[in-house]
């Protein structure tokens, strides 16, 4: 008898264990609805710890301003690829997605494929539209619906190492065009032996700003979504870069991109005289290249021809509200509070060092107050931005963007810049393959 009981018991335990393992865990059940006076739980995913800190701070501010609609933000920081993959699968299967999520611009088009599993944010964006840089909203839109709100404009600028330039007798303010940049680079190379700049071969931050800053609305794609990689604006930029490498004025970035440890070390030790990257790259200087403090100056990028645009909006992270959110209204309102309000935009600058989306705060007194970025780069960071305000060119982002970017990162740039193949030939072949 006992034996039999034991067998039945163990079978039962095994079965229940299996069943509980199989039954899906429905996650954040701890929310208490939209009822007033209660705390609403919002789950948030991001790939950047700094973003999380910013949102936690904004939660505190929200709770102070809305005592009857308290929220509690549960934030998860995952590695970049992990987070996007998880989110993609969660939204595809309709289970397990958070209420709010950060989605990086390069990945965003993936989330717009098919029926977007994100909520349209038009009702919170439209009232503020006049104060926002609209080209930065269009990159997260599909069929007239906005699905994400960015942190920043991402204006591309150029960072010069003033110490090296002074040694070579070059004044960065005299560099107006890319031709000026080349001759100044030659001078720097001759006088100091240090290359003027470095070019990315496994990412697009060196090429895309140069392509996008060309006058007109086209970059790798035309404004109406046609493949545009064989056009002169792409060919010229790549030929220019090829020339810089040939003459030794530029070197390929060690590690392939400006986010590699090798590069941080090289730049920090004064191994390169300048780099063009978006405004948000400031944080990499303050965090990874401490020895350059006080030596770097930020200037507008050179233009292709005098009086042509000197910047382009690059990169970004769109924060989105998912369709599976149980409290979509409060999630949207909180997102708007954090990223569209004046207060939020000032904090985006103070805490993250990003050039905020609202152009009407750029000359606010709060943006002149000292923080770790002004300590590093000096106090006139925003004068550069207001100077190029009208010249920040947009980029064309759509469902084809990830495929085109991959093609450039893995093959086109490598073949042209490292293997020194003919630019037009490589681009033509790539265009053929992309069709």
């Amino acid at each position, binding site marked *: 008898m006992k034996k039999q009981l034991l067998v039945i018991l163990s079978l039962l335990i095994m079965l229940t264990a299996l069943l509980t393992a199989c039954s899906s865990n429905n996650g954040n059940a701890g929310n208490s609805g939209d009822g007033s006076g209660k705390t609403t739980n919002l789950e948030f995913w991001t790939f950047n710890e700094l973003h999380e800190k910013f949102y936690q701070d904004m939660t505190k501010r929200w709770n102070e301003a809305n005592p009857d609609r308290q929220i509690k933000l549960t934030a998860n920081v995952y590695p970049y*690829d992990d987070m996007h993959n998880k989110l993609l699968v969660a939204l595809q299967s309709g289970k397990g997605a958070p209420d709010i999520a950060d989605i990086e611009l390069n990945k965003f088009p993936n989330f717009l494929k098919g029926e977007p*599993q994100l909520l349209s944010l038009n009702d919170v964006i439209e009232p503020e539209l006049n104060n926002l840089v609209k080209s930065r909203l269009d990159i997260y839109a599909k069929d007239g619906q906005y699905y994400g709100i960015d942190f920043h404009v991402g204006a591309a600028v150029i960072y010069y190492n003033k110490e090296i330039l002074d040694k070579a007798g070059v004044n960065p303010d005299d560099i107006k065009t890319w031709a000026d940049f080349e001759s100044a680079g030659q001078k720097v190379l001759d006088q100091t032996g240090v290359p003027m700049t470095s070019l990315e071969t*496994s990412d697009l931050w060196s090429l895309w700003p140069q392509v996008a800053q060309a006058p007109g609305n086209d970059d790798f794609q035309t404004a109406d979504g046609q493949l545009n990689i064989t056009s002169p604006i792409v060919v010229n930029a790549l030929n220019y870069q090829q020339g810089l490498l040939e003459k030794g004025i530029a070197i390929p970035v060690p590690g392939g991109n400006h986010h590699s440890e090798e590069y941080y070390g090289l730049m920090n030790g004064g191994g390169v005289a300048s780099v063009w990257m978006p405004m948000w790259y400031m944080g990499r200087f303050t965090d990874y290249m401490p020895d350059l403090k006080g030596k770097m100056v930020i200037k507008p990028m050179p233009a292709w021809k005098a009086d042509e645009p000197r910047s382009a909006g690059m990169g970004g992270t769109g924060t989105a509200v998912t369709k599976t959110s149980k409290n979509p209204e409060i999630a949207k309102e909180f997102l708007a509070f954090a990223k569209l309000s004046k207060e939020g935009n000032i904090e985006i600058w103070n805490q993250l060092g990003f050039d905020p989306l609202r152009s009407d705060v750029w000359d606010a007194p709060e943006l002149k107050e000292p923080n770790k970025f002004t300590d590093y780069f000096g106090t006139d960071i925003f004068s550069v931005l207001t100077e190029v305000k009208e010249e920040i060119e947009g980029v064309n982002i759509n469902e084809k963007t990830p495929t085109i970017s991959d093609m450039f990162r*893995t093959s086109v740039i490598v073949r042209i810049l*490292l293997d020194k193949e003919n630019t037009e030939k490589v681009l033509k072949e790539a265009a053929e393959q992309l069709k």
Partner: protein
Amino acid sequence: MTDSALETAANTEAKRKAKRSGILYSQKFAPYYFVFPFLVSFAVFFAYPVLSAINMSFQEVLPGQVKYIGLDNYKDLWNATFLKAILNSTKYTIYTIVILIPVPLVLAVFLHSKRMIAKNFFRSTLFIPALTSVVVAGTVFRLAFGELEGSLMNSFVMWLGFEKQRWLGNGALAMSTLVILAAWRWIGINLLYFMAGLQNIPKELYESAEIDGASTWNKFSRITIPLLRPITIYVFTISIYGGYSMFTESYMLWNGNRSPNDIGLTIVGYLYRNGLEQNNLGLGSAVGFALLLITFVITIGQLKLFGMFRKEE
């Protein structure tokens, strides 16, 4: 309730019990109870995903819009990048097998020999790499094989009098870096298999060989190698799949799935790029199914070649 009613109830109860225990203790069913947990986990975590991946490979999978598109995904597979991925994976598999079978075998023989000193020390040092995570190892290798003069490998080759190299930028060097990383990591594991195999070879065989005057080489080639055959075939088989499914090493070495000119792109890397990075799960599933077919065909062919399907003589 009357007494008789109670009695019949007790009766049927007893019968039921007997029946139940009959099922529980029947020799016919008992084995199935024991394999039941495995069957369930196999069905849930293996069979179901494989079948739904095969199904998905004929679909265009988009949120809210899943539709069948016939063989389109497989037609899309026929492109230069995927062929390059297959070629890379094949090369990697061949090189790792060429290194990871003879080297651990010889090392195992050394470590098994009575004359070897500091056996435990070598045993553990050779095994430690297998315990490090691929992510950590990949990152360390990426820095060690960096392209600047100061990187470990470049200072080494420059000390030897060569030029500095772009280890991860050139096809042949990149492949050798991957193979070095694999060799460093897997020698310990394969060593363990071969050591276990060696322990099963009866000592008497060697003793009688010695009496017959066999040399060390003769003992190794006539006794050790033939008797290790089952282990060798096992290691060979798992190495084929291990080689073809390699992904993390290449992903970590290039800090993302993007090696210049795709010199480090593997089949799984291609799956990851299409399925997740470009949100095309249908094409990704097709890549996965192709990988399954490739490894299946090679493994079956290989096992047939070694005569694993022949009946024991």
